[in-house]
């Protein structure tokens, strides 16, 4: 079943049920839409961007992430399982020594962190990393 944005919103809570059935994060289509808005529907190449993220995040509130996109003008991060997929956009200025940035982000659940880089020639590149977010025991 094709999960269009309209259907996803109309389904409401059943979208969360579908997470279990399809294995896809519930807000994946919101992310697709956000990426399309960013790129104007352009093709997304792969291989030029890398994301460093933990395999398992000990707490979803503070997850260290590094993104590297040599030759990029800007990199936008998305979290496809968050209610609001956009995370940050790094615009690199003339004095940036590299197109690399690290930060700490909030992840609501196990999901993919997606990086979309706008390259100097106007093309777009993408990378994604899956991060497992655990729900703690007593301490959690």
């Amino acid at each position, binding site marked *: 079943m094709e999960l269009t944005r309209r259907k996803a919103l109309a389904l409401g809570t059943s979208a969360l049920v579908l997470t279990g059935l399809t294995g896809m994060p519930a807000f994946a289509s919101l992310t697709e839409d956000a990426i399309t808005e960013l790129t104007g529907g352009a093709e997304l190449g792969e291989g030029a961007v890398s994301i460093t993220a933990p395999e398992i995040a000990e707490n979803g509130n503070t997850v260290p992430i590094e993104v590297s996109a040599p030759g990029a003008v800007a990199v936008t991060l998305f979290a496809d399982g968050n209610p609001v997929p956009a995370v940050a956009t790094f615009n690199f200025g003339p004095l940036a020594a590299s197109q690399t940035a690290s930060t*700490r982000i909030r992840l609501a659940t196990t999901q993919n962190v997606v990086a979309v880089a706008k390259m100097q020639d106007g093309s777009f590149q993408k990378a994604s990393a899956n991060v497992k977010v655990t729900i703690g025991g007593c301490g959690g």
Partner: protein
Amino acid sequence: MASGVKPRVKVPKSASAGEAITIKTLISHKMESGQRKDGDGNVIPRSIINRFTTDFNGENVIDVTLEPAISTNPYFEFEATVPESGEFTFTWYDDDGDVYDTSKKIEVS
């Protein structure tokens, strides 16, 4: 006005001309996401730092747009090229209109 907001930056004291240096920045800020609810079930409105910039002697190094998914006490690490001696200025922009800034000088040989 957000209270208790304090920036902290790490910049090397000196570098050679054209060298790439690592800069780390932190600011204490709650980053209220707009997803939480209070005891009565009302949504606590979003109130975050939404933009962070770093300039060196007036030229831009980085300009970051922040969304609510950036963790409390936003942290950024990135690299800058230093062509000459001068001053880095770091600026954070709050949803509530406040602007926080700090600066650090660097000696270039």
